[in-house]
């Protein structure tokens, strides 16, 4: 990994969760809230369809940042996010990030995850030790 400087973009992460991803994430995480895995239930409570788990999208933001250290699980020291928009299965998620500060081996990165024009993870700040 080349040295990072303030203002640098981190490599973009693009993922399109398939139709059954929310089911796999529900099993992996233990969060079986029906708004994520039951399309009919989701529509009944006023959502356009079953939606992604916010913590899945946050997991992709964590991946985009940890990938700066080749996915080393020790590298990510802090991550705070706001979950605002709804993430949809079968639509591409693009995670982008900009280096906000560099202090020795600690790099702080502002990150956003979006589907089209909709930010699904906002104001994400990650601290990575490289």
């Amino acid at each position: 990994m080349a040295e990072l400087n303030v203002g640098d973009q981190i490599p973009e992460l693009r993922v399109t969760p398939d139709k059954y991803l929310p089911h796999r994430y529900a099993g992996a995480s233990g969060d079986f809230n029906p708004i994520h895995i039951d399309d009919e239930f989701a529509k009944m409570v006023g959502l356009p369809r079953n939606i992604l788990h916010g913590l899945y999208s946050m997991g992709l933001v964590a991946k985009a940042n940890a990938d700066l250290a080749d996915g080393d699980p020790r590298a990510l020291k802090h991550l705070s996010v706001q979950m605002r928009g709804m993430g949809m299965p079968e639509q591409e998620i693009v995670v982008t990030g900009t280096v906000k500060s560099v202090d020795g081996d600690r790099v702080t990165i502002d990150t956003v995850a979006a589907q089209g024009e909709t930010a699904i993870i906002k104001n994400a700040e990650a601290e990575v030790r490289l």
Partner: protein
Amino acid sequence: MPIKTDAVGKEWPGVTYQVGREKIKEYATALGLDNPVHADVQAARAAGFRDVPAPPMFAVVYSSPAMAPAILDPEVELNFAAMVHGGQAFEWDEPACAGDEITTTAKCLSIEEKDGKGFYVFESNSVNQDGARVARGTWTLIVRGV
């Protein structure tokens, strides 16, 4: 009716979660994490871990069993049906590895009303079997129409 804030400062008893290799693999696969340390104990040991390490966001898996009783506590009076998970933060220390027994305690940090919405903030503190801190979480839950 003003929002009920009696539960601010309340702490709940710790809940212990045993981290397993297959669960880590399942989580890493769902997220598309391709570092072989999450699936292969030899790769994990070669990278300096005592066993297969959990990805950082696996913190939600081992801390959620401690958060559920706090969020659903009748004293908190949080309308679960109108709740969205609005914000989340984690700070990580010692990596969690397969075989670890991680105990998480939950605490209610604040309950506030803003623009007709209730903001419920909880903290989770997770320590491993050696007493080393693994992760600290801040969970912000937003309830519409309080």
